[in-house]
């Protein structure tokens, strides 16, 4: 990898992501404004204030996942056309994932803060996801809660971006028949076969085998925001390494 080529590669690839992210933020702002107006109208009929998780973070996760899927292939093609090697391309993608996570976190926390200010007087307080999960209090989130939320959302977005990238690479590297098998087989396996077999299997061993590690993970993350950050970073590393293994020898033509 040569740092000299990293800057133009990042500049070139991030432009599209930045544009998409800004469009996304603009759409979200429009939705949030509509939501505030609706909440304001509904507040007249409510006896006491309630808190709602802002849907910005969930929507942003979906957005980041889609960016992860789309970016790697498009960028790899453009960068190889301009004489950039695989390593530099992959490092560029990691930097883009980080920059996107940072951008959407900052935008998200600002929007959430402003939304909270706008909604706290109408009895429907919108709060960040981290606040809802980890805060012991009820009501308005403080500045430190927003910092905690940012600290949690950056690795989460990074993880989701890299998951999208990994899925994209898996599909890119798979031969055509296998793409169809995986595209159909995975949902069938997860939502039909496993629940069906699991419900008839003695002692629900199959479900237990799948659910138990998930429960452990949830328990670990629920213990504190720090654990959640560690888990997100650990998954990011796993997804990143797997993506690199698939990408480094991928034909681009």
């Amino acid at each position: 990898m040569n740092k000299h080529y990293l800057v133009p590669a990042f500049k070139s690839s991030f432009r599209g992501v930045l544009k998409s992210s800004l469009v996304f933020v603009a759409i979200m702002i429009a939705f949030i404004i509509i939501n505030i107006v609706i909440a304001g109208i509904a507040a007249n009929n409510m006896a006491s204030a309630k808190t709602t998780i802002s849907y910005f973070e969930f929507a942003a996760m979906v957005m980041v996942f889609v960016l992860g899927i789309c970016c790697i292939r498009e960028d790899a093609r453009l960068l190889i056309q301009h004489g950039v090697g695989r390593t530099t391309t992959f490092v560029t993608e990691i930097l883009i994932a980080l920059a996107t996570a940072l951008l959407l976190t900052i935008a998200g926390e600002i929007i959430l803060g402003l939304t909270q200010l706008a909604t706290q007087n109408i009895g429907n307080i919108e709060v960040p996801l981290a606040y809802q999960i980890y805060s012991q209090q009820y009501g308005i989130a403080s500045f430190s809660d927003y910092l905690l939320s940012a600290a949690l959302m950056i690795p989460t977005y990074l993880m989701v971006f890299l998951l999208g990238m990994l899925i994209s690479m898996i599909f890119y590297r798979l031969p055509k028949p296998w793409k169809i098998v995986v595209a159909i087989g995975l949902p069938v396996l997860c939502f039909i076969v496993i629940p069906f077999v699991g419900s008839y299997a003695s002692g629900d061993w199959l479900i237990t085998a799948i659910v138990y590690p998930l429960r452990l993970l949830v328990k670990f993350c629920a213990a504190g925001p720090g654990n959640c950050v560690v888990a997100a970073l650990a998954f990011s590393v796993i997804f990143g390494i797997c993506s690199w293994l698939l990408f480094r020898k991928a034909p681009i033509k």
Partner: protein
Amino acid sequence: MGIELKNITKRFGDTLALNNINLNFDQPKIYGLLGNNGAGKTTMLNIISNRIFPDSGEVIVDDEQALDNDCALNKIFMLSEKNLYPDGMKVERAFEEAANFYQNFQMDQALEMAKQFGLKTRKKINTLSTGYTSIFKLIVALNVNTPYLLLDEPVLGLDAQHRDLFYKLLLEKYANNPQTIIISTHLIAEVASLIEHTIIIREGKILRDMPSEELLSGGYTISGPASLVNEYIIGKQVITQNTLGGLKTACIAGQPDPVPLPENLELGKLNLQDYFIQLMNKEDSDHE
């Protein structure tokens, strides 16, 4: 200095696309990479530009390993049949991208060429016709000013007028800024006058790798009434022969006899396209 291919082998399933290829592309020269469909031309160019990887062997660019080497890869620009630009990208934006990666990219000249070809720079690349997509790629290729330029079917879909303009611009560019240009094409007759060095590939193997002049000086053509030609070629190494009506043309290896030709027979120089066709015919018959 130059591009060196060392023992390159590449398989696609059961097909051996490249079979232990050893080649040198020196600087600066115009190379013609010729071969039938499926000969391995594009595979070779894709391997040089790191788009695909060989099963074995290595590519050296200016004494550096090319594998995942940005410095080496940045010296090469490949124009391929496939479009690697994002769908929604506009032509002018693609020029900016090229300028972003190649410091020597000549934006003014690119825009001037776009005007000459009648290419609308505000259009999206994926909305361009096949011909104009080729023109767009050619303009980028002609202005990146990299030491090595790989052109894979550069004139795909171009009309005769635009093809002529491209060849003129290419020669102009080469005269002003000599570089190593590798042209892979099926339009041999059109590029024959440009090519200084010819490489002929077939089924992943190099059949010929020599200066074009040397290649063509190894034979001559004789044409005239079939009976006279038949008489003339007795005892000579005939590369190939074609009969049309009562007239016949034969390509003969070696030099013509220093004796005067019989009346009605005409001596001619071997041209690259004829040579190529004859060589392929010979290979076909050898295979049978």
